[in-house]
C-alpha cells in the first residue's frame, strides 16, 4: 500500500495542473515543490498562450493573475547601428482561447498551486527531491531530505534542469546544442508609461523579439514582454554556440538595454529582479521517454518547448501535458495498472494533441537556425542597408530602386537567399 495515489515533483504549470486533475478525481496527491512557494524557482520570458489553460479553467480570465493581453506582435532585425521592426496587431488576437497574455511566474504559479490545493492536493514546500525510490525498474516513490514517500505513480514536473529524469527513464543530460540559456530582468515602469511607449491600450501590451545584435550575431535573440507595471527584457542563446562567443550573455543583455531602439523604452525604469532559466529547443528528437513503470514526465522535464525565433512556447505545452498526465494517471489508477503500459494513455493523448504534433513539426527548426548564421548577421545588415537606401535622402540624384537595391542583395548572394528561404520553409 503506497502512501499516496500520486506524488508530483514540482509545482509549475505542468505539476500544479496534474495535481488539480488527480485531486478533482478524488485521488490522494502530494506535490513536493523545492521553492518556498510555487514559482519561487521558476522563470518565464514570458507569454502564455491561453488555449490550454482555458480547457482546464474555462473562467481563467476572471481569476488568473495575468499581466497584459498581447495585442502587438513585434519582430525586429537589429544591427548595432539600426533596427527594423514589424508590428502586427489584429482583432483575431483578441478572441478568447486564441489570445495570449504576458505573465510572471511568481503570481501565476501561486494561483495554479492554490487551485490544486483547493481541489484537495497536499503540498510540501521548500524541499528538493534528491532521489527516486525504485523497486527494480519501477519508480515507487521519492526521497526528500530524510523522508521517503511512496506512490503508485510519480509525475516529474521538475523543469528543464531535472536531475531525476535519468534515474526515472534513463534520460541522459541534453547536449548544449539542444538547450538555450535565458537571462531576464524585470524592469519596473508605471502602467501608463508602458502603454504610451508601446502604443498599447490600457491592459494591453506587446511581445517583441529581436534577432541579430541582441546576441551579437550568435544563435538566439532578445525579447521584451510588457507586464502590468514592468517590462520583462532578456536574451535567449543556444548554449553550445554561446560558449564560443566573444561576449558573455550578461554583457549582451546590458548592451541590448543600451541599444538606441530599446533604451528609450526602459528609460527611468528600475531593475527589480535578474533571473536565469534554460530553454529546451531540440523538439521531438531530444525528448525522453514520456512514461516509465510508475512514472510520467510532463512539461520542461520532458523538454516540451519550442523556440522559433518569432515565437517561444512552453507553458501551453506544459499545461496540456499536465492535464493529460493527471487524467491518464487517474485512468491508470482506476484500472490498477500504473506500469509504463498502463500509463500509455498519456503518450497517446499527447500524440493526438497539438503537443507532440508541434514538437514533431518543429524538430528541424533549431538545426536550421544553427546552420544558417546569416539570420543573425548578414540579414539584419542587409535589411539596414536596404532601408537606408529606401529612406535616406541626402540630395544625391535617386537611382532606380532595382539598381540601388541590387548591390545589397548581391552582398548576400541571390542563391544563398533563396536557399535559406527554402530551408527555413522546410523546417517550419
Amino acid at each position, binding site marked *: 500500500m503506497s502512501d499516496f495515489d500520486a506524488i508530483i515533483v514540482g509545482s509549475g504549470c505542468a505539476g500544479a495542473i496534474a495535481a488539480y486533475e488527480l485531486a478533482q478525481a478524488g485521488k490522494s496527491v502530494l506535490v513536493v515543490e523545492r521553492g518556498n512557494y510555487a514559482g519561487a524557482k521558476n522563470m518565464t520570458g514570458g507569454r502564455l498562450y491561453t488555449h490550454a489553460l482555458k480547457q482546464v479553467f474555462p473562467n481563467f480570465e476572471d481569476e488568473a493573475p495575468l499581466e497584459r493581453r498581447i495585442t502587438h506582435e513585434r519582430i525586429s532585425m537589429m544591427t548595432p547601428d539600426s533596427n527594423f521592426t514589424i508590428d502586427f496587431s489584429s482583432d483575431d488576437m483578441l478572441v478568447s482561447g486564441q489570445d495570449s497574455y504576458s505573465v510572471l511566474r511568481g503570481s501565476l504559479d501561486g494561483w495554479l498551486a492554490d487551485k490544486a490545493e483547493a481541489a484537495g492536493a497536499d503540498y510540501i514546500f521548500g524541499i528538493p527531491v*534528491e532521489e527516486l525510490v525504485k523497486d527494480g525498474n519501477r519508480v515507487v516513490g521519492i526521497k526528500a531530505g530524510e523522508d521517503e514517500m511512496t506512490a503508485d505513480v510519480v509525475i516529474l514536473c521538475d523543469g528543464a534542469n531535472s536531475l531525476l529524469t535519468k534515474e526515472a527513464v534513463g534520460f541522459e543530460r541534453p547536449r548544449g546544442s539542444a538547450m538555450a540559456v535565458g537571462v531576464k530582468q524585470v524592469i519596473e515602469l508605471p502602467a501608463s508609461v508602458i502603454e504610451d511607449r508601446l502604443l498599447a491600450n490600457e491592459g494591453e501590451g506587446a511581445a517583441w523579439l529581436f534577432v541579430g545584435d541582441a546576441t551579437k550575431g550568435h544563435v538566439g535573440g532578445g525579447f521584451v514582454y510588457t507586464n502590468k507595471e514592468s517590462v520583462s527584457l532578456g536574451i535567449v542563446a543556444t548554449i553550445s554556440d554561446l560558449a564560443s562567443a566573444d561576449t558573455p550573455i550578461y554583457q549582451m543583455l546590458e548592451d541590448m538595454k543600451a541599444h538606441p531602439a530599446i533604451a528609450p523604452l526602459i528609460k527611468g525604469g528600475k531593475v527589480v529582479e535578474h533571473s536565469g532559466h534554460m530553454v529546451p529547443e531540440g523538439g521531438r528528437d531530444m525528448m525522453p521517454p514520456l512514461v516509465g513503470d510508475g512514472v510520467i514526465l510532463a512539461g520542461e522535464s520532458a523538454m516540451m518547448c519550442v523556440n522559433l525565433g518569432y515565437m517561444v512556447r512552453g507553458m501551453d505545452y506544459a499545461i496540456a501535458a499536465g492535464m493529460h498526465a493527471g487524467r491518464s494517471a487517474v485512468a491508470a489508477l482506476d484500472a490498477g495498472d500504473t506500469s509504463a503500459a498502463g500509463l500509455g494513455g498519456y503518450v497517446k493523448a499527447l500524440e493526438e494533441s497539438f503537443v507532440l504534433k508541434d514538437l514533431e513539426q518543429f524538430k528541424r527548426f533549431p538545426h536550421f537556425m544553427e546552420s544558417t548564421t546569416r539570420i543573425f548577421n548578414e540579414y539584419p545588415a542587409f535589411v539596414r542597408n536596404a532601408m537606408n537606401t529606401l529612406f535616406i535622402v541626402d540630395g544625391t540624384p535617386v537611382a532606380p530602386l532595382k539598381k540601388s537595391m541590387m548591390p545589397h542583395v548581391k552582398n548576400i548572394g541571390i542563391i544563398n537567399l533563396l536557399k535559406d528561404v527554402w530551408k527555413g520553409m522546410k523546417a517550419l
Partner: protein
Amino acid sequence: MSDIKITVNVDEYLALNKFEVDEEQAHIELVENPDMAEFLKLVRVCPAALYKVDAEGKTSFDYAGCLECGTCRIACGDTIIKKWSFPGSTMGIEYRYG
C-alpha cells in the same frame, strides 16, 4: 576574453534578488585546476556571472548568487563541473517576479 569589455556589474543586479545562501554547503563544485578553455565557456554562458577571470588571469567561482538554471551543468557537466545539485531545503534563489 581579456579584450572583451565588461561594463556591467552583475553582482549589483544579483543584490536585488532574494537569496537564502547555504553557507554550509556548496551545491556546485568544480574540479581542481579546471581547464581554462572550459572555464571560459562558463564565463560566457552563466547568466549570473558567477564564473570570473580577473586581470591576472586568475579564475574564481562563487555559488552564492546562483540562479539554479543548470546551464553550467549542460555546458561543462562532463568536463570541469564535478558536482551539481540543488541547494538544500529552503535555500537558494527565491524569485518574487519570475
